[in-house]
């Protein structure tokens, strides 16, 4: 599974978009986005973002002053963006209503997830917005190579790659005429990613494997773990770790029996601010791993090879690279 996956990822990177166009955007601009063609006569103002990733990308491009609202927050805004964020109204911590978004008369609505704006969008469909003359932009990481109508959290038809994230940053920078900032941001993230991958490769680990445990509906129940083609799957693949979970779903539930018997070298658990399930708390996850009669016998638990990574670094966000670096640090501690 590992070698074809790697080959595929390599091919993907080879074909990737040119990383940076410098200079001003020429309007009218036509952008292809998830099956929709968007035309911009000028850089839009009063943008509304849904999903923290899209929000923070616009902040990273320095566009806080061109935003009219944000929604769908998972945790606190990154400290460096706090000043920008304080000026932008927050429409809702969760899904905003259609009218609250449209009421801002936005020049663009950018969403991190298709389940917010898409064929089965909680907020609305893209057509609903387009009929009112409001363009919508869906982060390519959530629609390219992913079918959001299959599986609980969508199913990836092609493995995720950070190129999709970089493409989203680049396109947003282009739309807002911030191509220099966009190119610089992508170059910075790409540089850190390459460094982490190089470090991991240099370790030259024989058959190192991992499992990513996001959360569970209840502690004893089958956990939500990362599938092959999602973002953690990409992290493991590029760093040379074998994902013990075979499913292609984004976050499938897999029994502890399967996880325990596959005995991964590393267990990654997610830290998050959310507290809906007991297992959202990473301390509870740790306590479970160490007390359950089966999981406590796992190699990774006995030798304390448990890595705690922020849940947001397991999603298509600018924080993803933090996760890659944390995972590389953990790999460095594995026995050769």
């Amino acid at each position, binding site marked *: 599974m590992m070698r074809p996956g790697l080959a595929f990822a390599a091919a993907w990177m080879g074909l990737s978009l040119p990383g940076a166009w410098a200079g001003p955007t020429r309007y009218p601009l036509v952008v292809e986005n998830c099956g929709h063609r968007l035309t911009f006569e000028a850089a839009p103002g009063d943008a509304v973002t849904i999903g923290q990733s899209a929000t923070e990308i616009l902040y990273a491009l320095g566009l806080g002053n061109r935003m009219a609202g944000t929604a769908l927050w998972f945790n606190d805004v990154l400290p460096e963006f706090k000043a920008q964020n304080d000026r932008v109204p927050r429409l809702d911590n969760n899904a905003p209503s259609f009218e609250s978004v449209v009421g801002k008369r936005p020049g663009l609505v950018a969403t991190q997830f298709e389940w917010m704006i898409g064929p089965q969008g909680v907020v609305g469909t893209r057509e609903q917005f387009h009929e009112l003359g409001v363009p919508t932009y869906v982060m390519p990481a959530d629609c390219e190579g992913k079918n959001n109508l299959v599986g609980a959290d969508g199913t990836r038809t092609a493995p995720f790659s950070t190129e999709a994230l970089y493409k989203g940053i680049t396109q947003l920078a282009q739309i807002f005429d911030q191509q220099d900032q966009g190119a610089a941001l992508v170059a910075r993230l790409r540089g850190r990613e390459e460094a982490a991958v190089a470090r991991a490769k240099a370790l030259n680990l024989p058959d190192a494997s991992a499992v990513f445990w996001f959360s569970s509906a209840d502690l004893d129940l089958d956990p939500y773990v990362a599938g092959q083609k999602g973002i953690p799957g990409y992290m493991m693949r590029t760093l040379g770790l074998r994902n013990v979970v075979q499913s292609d779903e984004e*976050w499938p539930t897999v029994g502890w029996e399967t996880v325990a*018997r596959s005995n991964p070298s590393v267990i990654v658990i997610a830290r998050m601010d959310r507290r809906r*399930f007991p297992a959202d708390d990473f301390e509870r996850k740790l306590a479970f791993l160490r007390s359950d*009669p089966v999981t406590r016998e796992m190699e990774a638990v006995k030798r304390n090879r448990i890595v705690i990574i922020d849940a947001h670094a397991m999603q298509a966000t600018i924080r993803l690279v933090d996760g890659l670096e944390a995972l590389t640090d953990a790999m460095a501690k594995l026995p050769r």
Partner: protein
Amino acid sequence: MILPPGRPLARLLGRIVLHGAWIALALAAAILAGVCIGETAIPVGTVWRTLANKLFDAGHALDRIDQGIVWNYRLTRAIVAACCGAGLAVSGVILQSLLRNALADPYLLGISAGASTGAVLVTVAGVGAGAVSLSLGAFGGALAAFLLVALLARASGGGVGPRAAGQIVLAGIAGSQLFNALTAFMITRSASAEQARGIMFWLLGNLSGARWDNVGMAVPVAVAVTSVCLWHARALDAFTFGTDSATALGVPVRRVQALLIGCASLATAVMVSIVGSIGFVGLVVPHAARFIVGVRHVRLIPAAALMGAMFLIAADVLSRIVVKGQVLPIGVITALVGAPVFALILVRRRPAR
């Protein structure tokens, strides 16, 4: 021609021992099959040696993970599945008999809806702030819903008589709707897709969390409820021609209804809180059992309990092996298998007229 009362009693005891023995054997075989078949392949020899180690201290050297999986995951899971299957099936028998309604099932009384409301309260709305588990919330919700439905049925004039059965069904439907609306309200108010999904998964039933503490809860409840119902087998038979007829045959109708419906509700609430709501067992298994052993409760109740237990173990095994490396919600399997079986029974037992 009066016979000494001792002889039928002795014969009864003999029958109990005989039938009890083969029922226990069948159950043990089913549980063993559930232990041997799982998500991953564990050799039968390992299973045997694990059981020998744990039960008889045989001291075989075994991989600790394999041994843990067999003893702590699979065995508990099979036992809990058996108890849930038996509990739900017996509850179905009771409700169908007492309410004189072939469509009655344990979820009719709003129990499942209440359980999901309780679960959502704990998970999505954050009641109890992590100290209360999903299952405890579900149990609380199930009991609250049942009490509400019982009160409503009483207030709407559910006295003795054929109308009482109708009233409790109507109250159950009203209660279910109310609790489903509450659940929907809370989910739309505060959930994101990821959480809603966790609850959905649980609503379709999930045996993966079954551990020894659940066994300690499920076994006594299943055994107690089955025994209480079996003790009242003749009273249940007397409901064949309705509640008036049962009264005339010397059955204290109100007391029996209250006791047995209470038993069915308790069993359902406990099972739902452990494994989520598993549909179709409480509806289909009683009909299947009736099809095989007839309507007399003295045979019907043990048959339904055994068939329910075996059905759920089989469904659980299937749910683990249909898709490799992934476990399907057991409710999906019970519905997929149960619906055609139900259809078959409906066609086969069409009245001769």
